[in-house]
């Protein structure tokens, strides 16, 4: 056992001494760090500038602006409600709108929120109960900002606006601020439904939809008025809308989303298993090939048995893989807690599977046994290859055999597909079992299937280690050309 640990420690140190190891190890945390930064660059800094030229007297422009302000108020209220829910701050004012989470905020709610003073008084109340380390609430930036119509445009006839708006939509000066949307509500609006929109790029569909909604309501009100309906009744008729009572599983949108969130951890385990295996496995392969090509195996074998060498290598490589995963998970948790954002929202339900000891045990078992099942393939390839070029010849088909089905598997799980022939095949064929079972743990896999596949995997791995162990032993000091399949079988037999 001491020799196994010595070989494992040397193997670990050798891999940890490689530059590629540290580069690979740091890629994931760097991505975590780069994510929020990239988000910052992707996010729009400035709201879109909107100008409404209302030739009907100003009522339409006011209605449009009011609509956008209500929508903005709803967004702020929703964000505030999420913030309060995440940090458990309902005690600040249990009767406040923002302390009630499972609901859709109506226009009336938004108006009530605005009437109560809006964000500032709410924040003041929250500040009284929130803990020091809880971050302050920051509302997202508004999407749109309304700008006044310049006096110079007031006298420009509708037909001349195309030319007159050019310098406003695309100003010449570098620092000049462009107006993103210009809406013209002509004087004839009502008798004619025509409204014109200029935009300095492809207009956003949400902007167009909101604009259309406001103007449609107005047209309908006008129409109802012409039909003899009182203006107040007409106004009320257009505002009729169902009151939506929304029930959501804590954060998410529905059952399927909830399942997907629960699948994050098992899927991540399957993915990390694959990543760490491919990386540490190929490093182990490199080490074994180096031992063969550097002719130092005989010196090693004079001190340790081939079995000790094999188990030491497996243990060392598994140590590397587990170290990588520990670092990645640590960085993930740090990122989740450091950002306190959407990732943190996801983490809580994603950790749900860990509340079941059976699931934890299944994850650990399939992870470790899966590691040995695949890693020993790399070791066997290393033992029959005199150079990395030789090894590549064996490695490519093995990699494809393992990786391709797993790619399909992950897509299937992400698509919420937890059944079908392919999923069953991947679950029951031992080389794919660890990945399939790990990936399905979140979606729900019958306990009997987990136990049965676990037993089959254990038997397969035992036989595999015995047979490939023989190949490893018989191939260590063999020289010459790459062995054929028949030669490999003969080595397995002769080493018995």
């Amino acid at each position, binding site marked *: 056992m001491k*020799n196994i640990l*010595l070989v494992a420690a*040397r193997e670990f140190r*050798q891999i940890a*001494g*490689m530059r590629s190891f540290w580069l690979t190890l740091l890629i994931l945390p760097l991505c975590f760090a780069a994510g929020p930064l990239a988000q910052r660059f992707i996010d729009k800094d400035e709201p879109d500038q909107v100008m409404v030229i209302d030739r009907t007297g100003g009522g339409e422009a006011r209605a449009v602006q009011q609509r956008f302000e209500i929508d903005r108020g709803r967004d702020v209220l929703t964000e505030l409600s999420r913030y309060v829910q995440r940090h458990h701050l309902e005690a600040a004012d249990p009767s406040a709108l923002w302390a009630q989470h499972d609901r859709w905020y109506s226009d009336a709610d938004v108006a009530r929120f605005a009437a109560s003073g809006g964000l500032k008084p709410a924040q003041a109340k929250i500040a009284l109960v929130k803990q020091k380390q809880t971050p302050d609430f920051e509302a997202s930036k508004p999407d749109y900002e309304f700008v006044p119509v310049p006096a110079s445009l007031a006298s420009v006839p509708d037909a001349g606006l195309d030319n007159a708006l050019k310098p406003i939509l695309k100003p010449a000066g570098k620092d000049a601020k462009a107006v993103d949307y210009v809406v013209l509500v002509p004087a004839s609006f009502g008798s004619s439904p025509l409204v014109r929109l200029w935009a300095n790029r492809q207009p956003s569909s949400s902007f167009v939809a909101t604009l259309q909604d406001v103007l449609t309501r107005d047209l309908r009100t006008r129409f109802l008025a012409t039909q003899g309906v009182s203006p107040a009744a007409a106004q009320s008729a257009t505002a009729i809308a169902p009151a939506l009572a929304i029930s959501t599983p804590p954060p998410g949108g529905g059952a399927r989303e909830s399942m997907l969130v629960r699948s994050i951890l098992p899927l991540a385990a399957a993915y990390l298993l694959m990543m760490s295996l491919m990386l540490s496995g190929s490093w182990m392969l490199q080490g074994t090939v*180096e*031992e063969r*090509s*550097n*002719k*130092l195996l*005989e*010196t*090693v*074998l*004079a*001190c*340790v*048995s081939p079995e*000790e060498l094999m188990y030491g290598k497996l243990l060392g490589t598994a140590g590397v893989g587990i170290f990588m995963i520990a670092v990645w998970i640590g960085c993930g948790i740090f990122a989740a807690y450091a950002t306190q954002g959407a990732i943190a929202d996801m983490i809580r339900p994603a950790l749900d599977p860990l509340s079941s000891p059976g699931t934890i045990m299944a994850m650990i078992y399939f992870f470790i046994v899966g590691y040995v099942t695949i890693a020993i393939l790399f070791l066997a390839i290393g033992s029959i290859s005199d150079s990395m070029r030789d090894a590549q010849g064996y490695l490519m088909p093995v990699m494809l055999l393992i990786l391709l089905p797993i790619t399909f598997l992950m897509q299937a799980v992400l698509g919420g597909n937890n059944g079908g022939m392919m999923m069953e095949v991947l679950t029951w064929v031992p080389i794919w079992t660890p990945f399939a079972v790990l990936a399905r743990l979140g979606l729900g896999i019958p306990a009997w299937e987990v136990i049965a596949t676990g037993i089959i995997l254990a038997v397969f791995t035992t036989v595999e280690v015995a047979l490939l162990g023989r190949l490893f032993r018989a191939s260590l*000091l063999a020289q010459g050309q790459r062995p054929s399949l028949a030669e490999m079988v003969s080595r397995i037999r002769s080493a018995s």
Partner: protein
Amino acid sequence: MGVLTLERVSKRFDHVLAVNDLSFTVEPGTVFGFLGGNGAGKTTSLRMVLDIIRPTSGRIDVLGRPPGRVNAPDIGFLPEERGLYRQMTALDTIAYFGRLKGMTPADARREGTDLLDRFGLAANTKSTVDKLSKGMAQKVQLATALVNRPRLLILDEPFSGLDPVNQGLLEDEIRRMSAAGSTVVFSTHVMQHAERLCDRLLLLAQGRKKFEGTLDEARAELPARLSVVAKDDPSRIAGVESAEDRGEAEKGWRRWDVRLTPGIAPGDILERCVAEHFPLRRFEQLHASLHDVFVHMVGSAEARP
């Protein structure tokens, strides 16, 4: 009791009998030469002693025990094909093999440092192997074999690939180990090294033992030869198998290369020459080289200079 004993050991690979019924014993403190041409079975025999491969039949006894890693703390081994972990430092490499041979980390590092110092590599202790010259790497490899101060040092073709400086260093180390009471077994097909170093020799050809004994006993296997200067043909003296005329030495005297009948000593011939009043001006015994013995025993096809 011998340090190493092989009794009727054979090893077969498929249809090839690499070692055939080999028996010998190495006594403690001797330097034992394992001689033979390429493919004679030397490396296979040594691998069996180290339990890297198992014999097909026969019994092997190493330091009173069967072959196995349990013997590793008492054995030093330098294989014919050598290599080191390129990214490990010189000291770490030696210490690693010391640890595999059961040494404590502190002892392994201390012994490694002493060896590097003795081999003139004190400044390279922390250099990785890929930064060392070939000669330096050879010294590090030798240090990995010596780090545990082995009771039995096994060297497989130790001089092959070594530069003259390192050959001298290795010869010194073999003598040092022998003087310290260790037993050294080394295989070689370069007879000069064996002649200089070995107390006993074993000649192997096609897996079979051809000879085992001292250097003098090996030479005695060849008919003695004389270089004489005489007036007459010495072949008429009883015990002379043949005499070849090598030309005139001085006026009236000729130089003769004389081959004696097996079993006849040069002193017997000298005695007969005196008794028969056979005139002589020179009588010199020619010692057979180990190479000659080797060629005589295994044939020139397997012999190498």
